[in-house]
């Protein structure tokens, strides 16, 4: 059993214009992913688009893998046009995902925009934990998804830059407040957002000496650590987002 697999596209659900939820069923037994890991999907058998595209695993079960994707460029557009029933060629699970949530009452999950695709499965697996805090921010309410599904979580803080839903704040501001409200820095933050937000969250966590795990995105080709396209500079040298990441612990950065 290796990580190169073929799966049937069972369902393609348009969540909103330009946003799709893909449900895939691998044909054979497959290695089960963990939250925060990712897959490379080959958009087409032709050579344009050429490279596979990386997607965080959104949710998974014994039989299926789900991906939440935004149609952004040539690759995602091609994938978005595939009909249900199509066979897809994918590689995964790849990379290092999030660790288990050991202390939900001391854990804050932060998602920015499409970052929800990476942390959704962490939230879902801890939805019964009344102590867990989730901060979910986006520019406007049109970029917030699956709120009903995660509403049951202990403490959900929704924020938008324009105030169209929830608090008028950035996820970063909401996180800083949540940190200040606590008397302790015995806190674990799990974060996935766009590059600048990840960077700001990293700086914040370092400033407050808080432990955290951040999932990063970078353009990649091979996904298995060979091409060195997706590196991230760290104090101990260049690390590959596809192999040493995509989730990095704050003390590595």
């Amino acid at each position: 059993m290796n990580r190169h697999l073929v799966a049937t596209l069972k369902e393609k659900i348009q969540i909103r214009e330009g946003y799709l939820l893909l449900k895939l069923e691998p044909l054979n037994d497959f290695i089960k992913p963990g939250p925060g890991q990712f897959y490379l999907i080959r958009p087409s058998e032709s050579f344009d688009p050429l490279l596979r595209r990386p997607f965080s695993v959104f949710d998974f079960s014994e039989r299926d893998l789900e991906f939440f994707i935004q149609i952004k460029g040539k690759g995602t557009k091609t994938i978005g046009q595939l009909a249900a029933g199509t066979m897809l060629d994918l590689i995964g699970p790849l990379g290092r995902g999030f660790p288990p949530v050991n202390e939900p009452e001391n854990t804050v999950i932060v998602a920015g925009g499409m970052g929800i695709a990476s942390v959704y499965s962490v939230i879902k697996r801890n939805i019964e934990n009344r102590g867990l805090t989730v901060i979910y921010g986006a520019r406007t309410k049109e970029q917030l998804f699956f709120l009903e599904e995660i509403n049951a979580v202990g403490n959900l803080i929704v924020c938008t830059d324009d105030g169209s839903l929830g608090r008028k704040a950035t996820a970063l501001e909401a996180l800083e407040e949540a940190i200040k409200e606590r008397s302790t820095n015995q806190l674990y933050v799990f974060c996935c957002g766009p590059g600048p937000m990840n960077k700001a969250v990293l700086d914040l966590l370092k400033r407050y000496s808080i432990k955290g795990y951040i999932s990063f995105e970078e353009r990649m080709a091979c996904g298995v650590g060979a091409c060195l396209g997706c590196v991230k500079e760290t104090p101990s040298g260049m690390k590959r987002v596809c192999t040493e990441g995509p989730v990095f612990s704050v003390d590595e950065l």
Partner: protein
Amino acid sequence: MNLEVKIGRLSLKNPVMTASGTFGYGAEYSEFVDLNALGALVVKGISLEPRQGNPTPRIYETPCGMLNSIGLQNVGLRRFLSEKLPFLRKFNTPVIVNILGDSIEEYLSLCQSLDPEVDAIELNVSCPNVKKGGISFATDRESLKELVGKVRDTLKKAILIVKLSPVASNIAEMARLCEQQGADAVSMINTIPAMAIDIETRRPRLANIIGGLSGPAIKPIGVRMVWQTYQSVKIPIIGMGGIMTAEDAIEYILAGATCVAVGTANFVNPSATVEIIQGIKDYMIRNKIENIKELIGGVVWEIRDR
């Protein structure tokens, strides 16, 4: 059916190898490919000291191709010998080490250390010769001549392959120069310097501005260069540039390549190399070809006078 080919004294069980920089140090793909099935394994370019490489973004996809500007990031000679080579030695597949340097001395020093340890050295000559104002070894006849000649004198055991750049104004002439200096083979083509711009931000797509173009987009250029070079050298040519399928590999062999290297295709399909080997066998059966050597340079053409 015989797929065996030779580069100098080195025998390969089949003509399909990996292209440097696209297969890591082998271990990265060992889950997807039986490394024993490969003709040879060419590892990521090694320098004397470790290199950090370029800032990101380092890659960008273009129609039927990709740009990369990794910047020769590698673990350096010492770690290659202690951490990477022992794994590769477990397989019954020749190991070819691509090497790079800023000066002839650096190349020679690498050759001295690697010579007893590996089957072949592939010189990446697309680096600047710092002592000669930074002109690339690949485009300057004098630099290339001196480098290949001195490396030849240094190597006692390992086979010498020179990887040529399509930037040279006459690649066939550069190949002949390498042959005269004692190279056992030439490999071609390296990536083609290229560029892409984001028209919204007006910024280059790569942090390094310029990167190397690879993938199916460059295949016809590689085939043409191999064909031209085949007319002017006797040493084997390792053909590469956009090989995705067995059909592409056979095209290169018909143009004059003795071996082929699979690069970008590994990213798209991690088992591309073994599928290409199988596809070559199928082609040989279909065309009743007993020995792969019958195909080398087998393109048939005629020039008609008007």
